[in-house]
């Protein structure tokens, strides 16, 4: 095992023959947790998940147990699983959906039971065609097995689960946009307050929204107890966690290990994890938590992969995706590509995001292609400041949702770290990496 000897949890069945089938799942202990959960009081499960300190793995890092405790009273209430994984360079949920759909379904049923929900949806990113097919087949199997539908395993608990799929829109990963889309509309994020899903979610009713990886831990937590989970890791960074490692490493991939017990260097260099920067190249920068997060330089390599530590250092672990860039990477081009993404995916409701992302993309491509001016660097920061005042961390917000404040970090941190490189583009009239 890499780093510590803790066994993986959510990835432990991946690689088994036909790991996505009911047979493999049940042969390897599947649905035992649901049987146990149904014999417990819903409140006891909720207490156990609170004890587990299960931080949401979708990006915001909010404690799942606390999120459940905020669910307003009222019928009907709903559970919506956010399987619309779209943050650039995050590919963990994609793997879990295709590789172990029953684990997600079992976690979903446990969550629904704990929260008194009888109608759940898994909103799968539309591009995950194979994932939609595997989940749909798994839901069919789960109904036939008695784990879904009426009177689940003879407990009297009913749950209907719908595999819903989208049609391509990054913003729908934002939970209120997800609900808007699930109501059959354009994926516009809602204003919060009042539209906190726990109070006014799907169809205006109280709604739990949880991420795929988060729910996939629940069967293990029910079997082993929340305190077994929180004993792993450090503080709020409890349990194990999946990291999606991509870019210039020898072994890109999803890696699950005990949280807060490894550093960025371990993840990138450990022979059973990243295996080092490709070709023995020099590390230039890492993006520690998805395209929305501020970049780090090689000086942060020995920082622990821990929620609070990374937050205090001015960035975030976000959705757990770490992008590695070696010295052959043009920082201007990488930052341009990220801002181009946000411009394309801005839903257009809020002016700072809609217009600001377009301005930034145009200025960045102008610099990258050699037509930039020195005063463009100040202009970039000025536009960033209009989207997220003072360009601080955690960011301030002028928009309905956090897509807006996700735009500046790539530009502001790359400019801060590689100002000389920006200037070379401007002075030499082109990209020195071309």
């Amino acid at each position: 095992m890499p780093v510590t000897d803790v066994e993986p949890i959510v990835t432990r069945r991946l690689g088994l023959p036909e790991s996505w089938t009911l047979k493999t799942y049940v042969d390897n202990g599947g649905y035992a947790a649901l049987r146990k959960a149904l014999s417990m009081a819903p409140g006891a499960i909720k207490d156990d998940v609170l004890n587990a300190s299960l931080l949401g793995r979708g990006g915001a890092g909010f404690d799942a147990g606390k999120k459940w405790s905020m669910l307003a009273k009222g019928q009907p209430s709903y559970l919506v699983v956010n399987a619309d994984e779209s943050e650039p360079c995050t590919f963990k949920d994609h793997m879990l959906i295709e590789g172990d759909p029953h684990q997600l379904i079992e976690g979903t049923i446990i969550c629904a039971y704990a929260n008194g929900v009888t109608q759940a949806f898994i909103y799968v990113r539309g591009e995950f065609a194979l994932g939609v097919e595997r989940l749909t087949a798994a839901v069919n199997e789960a109904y036939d097995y008695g784990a879904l539908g009426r009177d689940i395993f003879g407990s009297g608990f009913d749950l209907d689960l719908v595999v819903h799929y989208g049609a391509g829109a990054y913003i729908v990963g934002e939970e209120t946009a997800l609900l808007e889309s699930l109501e059959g509309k354009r994926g516009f994020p809602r204003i919060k307050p009042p539209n906190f899903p726990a109070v006014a979610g799907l169809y205006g009713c109280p709604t739990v929204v949880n991420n795929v990886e988060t729910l996939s831990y629940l069967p293990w937590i029910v079997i082993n107890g929340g305190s077994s989970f929180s004993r792993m890791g450090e503080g709020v960074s409890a349990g194990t966690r999946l990291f999606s490692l991509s870019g210039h490493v020898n072994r890109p991939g999803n890696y699950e290990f005990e949280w807060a017990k490894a550093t960025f260097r371990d993840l990138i260099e450990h022979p059973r994890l990243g295996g080092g920067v490709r070709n023995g190249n020099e590390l230039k920068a890492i993006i520690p938590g998805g395209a929305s997060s501020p970049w780090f330089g090689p000086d942060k390599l020995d920082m622990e992969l821990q929620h609070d530590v990374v937050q205090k250092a001015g960035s975030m672990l976000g959705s757990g995706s770490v992008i590695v860039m070696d010295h052959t990477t043009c920082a201007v081009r990488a930052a341009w590509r990220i801002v181009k993404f946000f411009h394309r995916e801005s839903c257009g409701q809020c002016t700072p995001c809609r217009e600001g992302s377009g301005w930034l993309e145009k200025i960045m491509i102008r610099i990258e292609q050699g037509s930039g001016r020195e005063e463009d660097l100040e202009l970039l920061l000025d536009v960033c400041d209009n989207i997220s005042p003072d360009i601080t961390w955690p960011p301030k917000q002028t928009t309905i949702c956090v897509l807006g404040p996700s735009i500046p970090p790539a530009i502001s941190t790359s400019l801060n770290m590689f100002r000389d490189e920006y200037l070379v583009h401007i002075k030499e009239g082109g990209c020195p990496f071309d």
Partner: protein
Amino acid sequence: MARLSPEIVQRARDMMALYPRPRSAIIPVLHLAQEQDGYLTEDAMAHIGELLDITPAEVYGTASFYDMLFREPVGRHLISICTNVACMISGAYELLDHAEKTLGIKADTTTADGEFTLEEFECIALCDKAPCLTVNWRFFGPVTNQDFDRLVDDLRAGRLADDVPPHGTLCRVRRTVGLAAQVPFPGREGDPMKKPVSDLPDDKAGPHTGTPPVDKRTPGERVAEGQQPAREGAVPQVDESAAEILHPEGTDTGPTAGGSRAGGGT
């Protein structure tokens, strides 16, 4: 162009019946229209409006928000090359250039024979296989220039037909359980146990239909009042004979086996 065929209409009605409000099914139903025609015809969108009891403009308004829904014809094979940052630093733009040359078209256009549409796409969550692409949403990666040429040859010759269905077919596995004909669920349209719609917040209340009924309690007070809602009504009898059992068309259908590409931390 075509309205939806009776078979597609039936599948659409099955989907609509899964949701507390039929409009929630609009995206899966729009995918069905694309399965029929390869893209969204105006007639199909108008027909979907009739099924969901909304205007064609509302259908169009929803459809036009989403990247996977096309309102113009696309090729039989939609090749989407990811150029987002992990793929870009692994040569995605070079691959896109090569693809344009191989196919003889620019990105976001279609070959004259209607076989291929090429598009530059955003991250498709296969970043450990960069640079990667999808063909009709089936994943391939990492893809070299040689791989790309072979892939195009195979697609043209129909050698990947089992793995890559024609553009528009998203999910080849049918839901066989919990359909309206089998098990009525509370809250669903057409269900005897359905709550009257007037009990729910007004669907036409404002630009964001999530606007809740006014509740002056604080979230803390609501929590203090307890979480466990009462179960509604009695369990209705299931009429087994009414159950229409469809058969799934196989589950292991994609070109990449899920899980096998996982590092898995082992």
